[in-house]
């Protein structure tokens, strides 16, 4: 069995709003799969349906081949951090985890183990209400790990973590995947997944935008371009266009820069040299994942700002 999470034609409507719209994708074990989409794209709703919290309007989702609601106890089958705030502020971290562990027949020593794993041993007896968001995220990750499950789902897990925490979480997710587990990680920021995910599932407005390895996704991004700075911008633009490039002019008046696509930097340098045009800048720009993401989801962003894109 090579597919652990399977979502097929999943749909969720709230009245007239369609939060998730005929969504289908699969998530494989031993890899970190990023679940990417703008705010309001339906990521959290999808995760809730996968975990059996919300019933789909249509379609189905299975974890390890069965609907998650079919389990009588869940923590050994999947662990999830949906929202770090989903704890009782009056309980200590240890009491919170003990109650979860006990209900699933998980030995008490696991509580100490996962607290150590996430670096909260020193805060075990403190009430959760006083925790920072980063600490609550760690506690949520600890709860997900309690049952040593083969499937892990995290919704925006590094929100509120300091840089050291983000790095720690990234290493943890990589390690969990390396152990053969299925790691499904949602985010609305490409940069968070760029160094962590192997595969990507991208959604916008509840619909699937892309589901493929991260490398393939990156290749779809904006074409390579070269930024050229020169005092004779109009002249060089004409020369480059004649050579088959497409040229856009940007930047402040008097110091315009050319954004050239269709010609490599060395050819642009050669053309400038042959025509005795002095260059002040010649910067090749790689296609970024962020660009690819923005392009793909541009027409599916739920809340756009007034600024032109």
């Amino acid at each position, binding site marked *: 069995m090579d597919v652990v999470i399977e979502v097929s034609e999943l749909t969720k409507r709230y009245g007239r709003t369609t939060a998730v719209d005929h969504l289908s994708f699969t998530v494989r074990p031993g890899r970190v799969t990023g679940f990417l989409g703008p705010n309001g794209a339906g990521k959290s709703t999808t995760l809730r349906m996968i975990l059996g*919290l919300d019933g789909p309007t249509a379609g189905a989702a299975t974890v390890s081949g069965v609907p998650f609601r079919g389990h009588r106890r869940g923590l050994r089958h999947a662990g999830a951090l949906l929202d770090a705030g989903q704890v009782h502020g009056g309980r200590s971290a240890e009491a919170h985890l003990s109650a979860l562990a006990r209900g699933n027949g998980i030995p008490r020593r696991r509580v100490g183990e996962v607290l150590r794993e996430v670096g909260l041993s020193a805060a075990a007896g403190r009430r959760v209400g006083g925790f920072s968001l980063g600490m609550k995220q760690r506690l949520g990750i600890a709860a997900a790990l309690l049952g040593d499950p083969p499937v892990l789902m995290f919704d925006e897990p590094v929100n509120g973590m300091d840089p050291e925490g983000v790095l720690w979480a990234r290493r943890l997710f990589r390690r969990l995947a390396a152990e053969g587990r299925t790691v499904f990680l949602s985010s609305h920021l490409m940069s968070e997944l760029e160094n962590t995910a192997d595969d990507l599932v991208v959604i916008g407005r509840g619909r699937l935008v892309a589901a493929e390895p991260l490398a393939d996704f990156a290749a779809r991004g904006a074409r390579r371009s070269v930024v050229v700075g020169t005092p004779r911008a109009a002249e060089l633009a004409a020369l480059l266009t004649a050579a088959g490039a497409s040229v856009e002019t940007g930047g402040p008046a008097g110091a315009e820069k050319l954004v050239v696509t269709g010609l490599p930097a060395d050819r642009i340098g050669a053309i400038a040299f042959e025509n005795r045009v002095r260059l002040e800048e010649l910067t090749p720009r790689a296609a970024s994942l962020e660009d690819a993401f923005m392009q793909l989801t541009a027409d599916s962003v739920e809340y756009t700002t007034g600024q032109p894109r």
Partner: protein
Amino acid sequence: MTSVTAPPARFRDLLASEWIKTRSLRSTPWTIALTALFVTGSAAVSTLADDAAGSGPADFRPFDAYPAAGYWTLMLVAASMGALTVVSEYGSGLIRTTTVAVPARGSVVLAKAAVTAALWTAVGAAVSVASFLVSQAVLDGRGAGVAITCPGVLRALTASALLAPVCALVGLGLGVLLRHAAATMVTSVFVLLMLPTMFSESERWAADVKHTLVSAAWTRLVRPWDPGPESLGYTATVPGSWTVFALWPLIAVAVAVLVVRRRDV
């Protein structure tokens, strides 16, 4: 990662889990201690204030141990605490963490109900016995004590002990239905305390409505005397009142289990 060796899903693990949740909140022992103190104190005050206790008929004396002010407070606190076991989980979203851990939602509600019932039966019994003893201590001082074997005394004591778990379970059921703290509290107070006062016992239909309500049933069960033929109102029967005591929590919990299975968490 391939083998999921899950032990059998045992209900008593869920009971233990809910008990950990209950006892790990600092507010639990404080609330219970203060409530017990207040209710017992109200029994003492009410007996002390009953100047006629020495001269009046012995039938009326056990009634002093169970004043409405004290026991309405107990109802209010028990209902609120029962509601909080679920409302606090909905309020914080903890219910989602809980449901991922235990997808069998009905079992979670039943476990919460069982722990709530056990806790408040213990509290109710302690408070009820303490009320009786305190009241008797005062009456004994006037040579007007009533033995527990007197007719109706044990019934009043039992009904007062069970009042707390009945109300706690009604609160829990309402909490599952309404999910919001304020809405649940207001509804609990209205249903348990306000509604019975709206109906008098002088009209048949009003008395019929009143007798289906928890506080009216309790009032009937703690009253050791039976109404004489000259009574102006309609009086509930004792078995009927016990039935009301049993049905309210049963229906509340049953509806909660049904609803929680169908609804999105």
